[in-house]
């Protein structure tokens, strides 16, 4: 018989519709959710909206949670789907101005203040944005969230080997993106890296 940890016991309760247990579990993951959502969406307000949407979906799908011990994994998986959906929607919208795009909604926050070294980050986040969904997932989980290959594989439900391949190809794509943008000499720092 499996001994349920506290979290797993809570998750079992949450799956049955216990709101208190559900909120406790979600709250335990909130910082991580925020970090991941911000890495994907580049805007605090969009990240908060994504978390809201994730909690909503998670509550509605709580009965699909087959193994309570994987609550956190399951929740993050939903979050990644929400963020990916949002990125797709953004692409559909006509984007004219990159600055606005990174500024999030309105003038709420401009953490991509386009000056000096910040531009390198902007380019990079733009490049990550351009990756296909799988590649973007592994890049964010590995380099923004410091997850191991095994943990990523578990989260995305893929073999380790696949994750390694994706990671390799994603880095390669990012590199070629950097080379392409090099022709536009906006960022001195990157030239130094060469």
């Amino acid at each position, binding site marked *: 018989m499996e001994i349920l940890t506290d979290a797993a016991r809570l998750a079992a309760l949450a799956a049955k519709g216990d*709101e208190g247990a559900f*909120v406790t579990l979600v709250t335990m993951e909130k910082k991580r959710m*925020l970090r991941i959502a911000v890495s994907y969406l580049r*805007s605090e307000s969009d990240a*908060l909206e994504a978390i809201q949407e994730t*909690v*909503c979906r998670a509550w*509605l799908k709580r009965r699909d949670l087959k193994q309570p011990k994987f609550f956190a994994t399951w929740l993050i998986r939903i979050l990644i789907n929400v963020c990916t959906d949002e990125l797709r929607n953004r692409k559909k919208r006509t984007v004219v101005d990159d600055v606005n795009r990174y500024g999030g909604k309105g003038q*709420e*926050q401009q953490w991509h203040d386009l000056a000096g070294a910040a531009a390198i980050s902007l380019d990079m986040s733009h490049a990550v944005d351009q990756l296909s969904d799988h590649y973007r997932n592994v890049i964010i989980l590995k380099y923004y969230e410091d997850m191991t290959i095994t943990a990523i594989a578990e989260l995305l439900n893929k073999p380790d080997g696949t994750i390694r391949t994706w990671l390799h190809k994603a880095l390669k794509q990012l590199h070629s993106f950097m080379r392409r943008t090099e022709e536009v000499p906006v960022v001195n720092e990157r030239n130094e890296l060469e």
Partner: protein
Amino acid sequence: MNGTNSNNDVVRCLQADRSRAEDAVKQVDDEMLDAAIMKGLELGRAKGHPRRRWHIPMWVAAAAVCLLFVLVFSIRISPVFANALRDIPGLSAFVKLIEHDPGLSSALSEDYVQPLGITQENNDIRLTVEGIIVDEQRLVVLYSAENVIENKEVPLRTIQFTDEKGKELRGIISYNTPPEYSEDESVKSRKEDVIDIRLIQPDLLPNKVKLKATAGEASFEVELPIDHSRFKGLSREVSIGKTIEVDGQQITFVRAKLSPLQIRLEMKYGAGNTKKISGFIDMAIEDENGMRWRMDTVFGSKGDQSTEYLFQSSYFHRPKKLAIISEGIYMTKRGERLVIDLDSEQIVQAPDSRIALQKVVDKGNYKQLFFTLSDLDDVDIQRGYWLTNDVFTDGEGASHGLYEAAKYDPGITLSLGSRQQTVQIPVPSGELPQPLSFILDDYPGYIRHPFRIDLPVE
């Protein structure tokens, strides 16, 4: 340059970008994060119930906002009917979609459906309007929409109804939760959905209605012929003309209109009332056997002197007697003010200590004021309070409107497990002389006063 080096460069850039992201994370405090979680749960709870989304046009007065909090009680239709309908191809899914409204359910089981079977295909999306349930002031569209390539449902959005000349119909449109959010496996995979429009008085449905909508990338315009012969002569208006006085406030039940799909009740409030009537506790229409049909839509008028309450229809139950019942009245004292000082973020004046200014969030074009209402009791929490609706005055007496674009955002959230609500009020940005003074026209308060008013049926 070899592969490892190039990867190192990329990784270095990623790390630089990551620190940017980390800075952004620091901008979000715990409170905002917790609020997002609670709001998500609240949305989840709402979508999990057979509750519907509402599209409320701007011209409908504020009374409509409280719709979001009207509970949709479902009185199940008889399982025999439901099973019979499940055998009819195309219609079976709709039984489930409308079961929250016993009036509509009986209309369906009584074969009061106008079959259409109009199909359009555009950008790989196929839209089929299977049929409509319609009377002179309500139109329920039963449709299915799917992406034919991916074999997947695509719910209709940006829904608009117009007459033949393209003039928009005036009314409240509601449509269902997207199937992906349903807890029910059989619903999740369905392609069927329902759109419902109820017209404002005295508008009637024209002979042809155009449904304009988008689904994914495709947009559609479908002409729906309305067969008026199906409901001609079925509606009846009965005058009631009864006035009750509760706590010094006069409420007159003017008339009711009974039609196959709805019961509409017109009320007038006394011109000398010192309180604004904002709703009724547990209001319903009851027949001689105790069967009840809930009130589920409100049309308010700007001057708030009259209101129309819409109930589910008892038509197909052929009741012998009907009565309007309620447990009491929600009301707000006129002339109460909420005065706040945004510099110190303090409340200067309020009717009581149940309201607090929780925080002020700068949204760029506007400031979002978060108020909390606490110590609400069982009756209070049955509805949401929007506090104020239109204008406020600044410290020098100049009047300003609320920030338009954010005004109709669902600004009210209910906190889990507590007797508390959060209400958001958007005020335009800019230096305004303090303090700001709002007229409170919807604040918690009620009088328990059960009443029963007969509705002449014969």
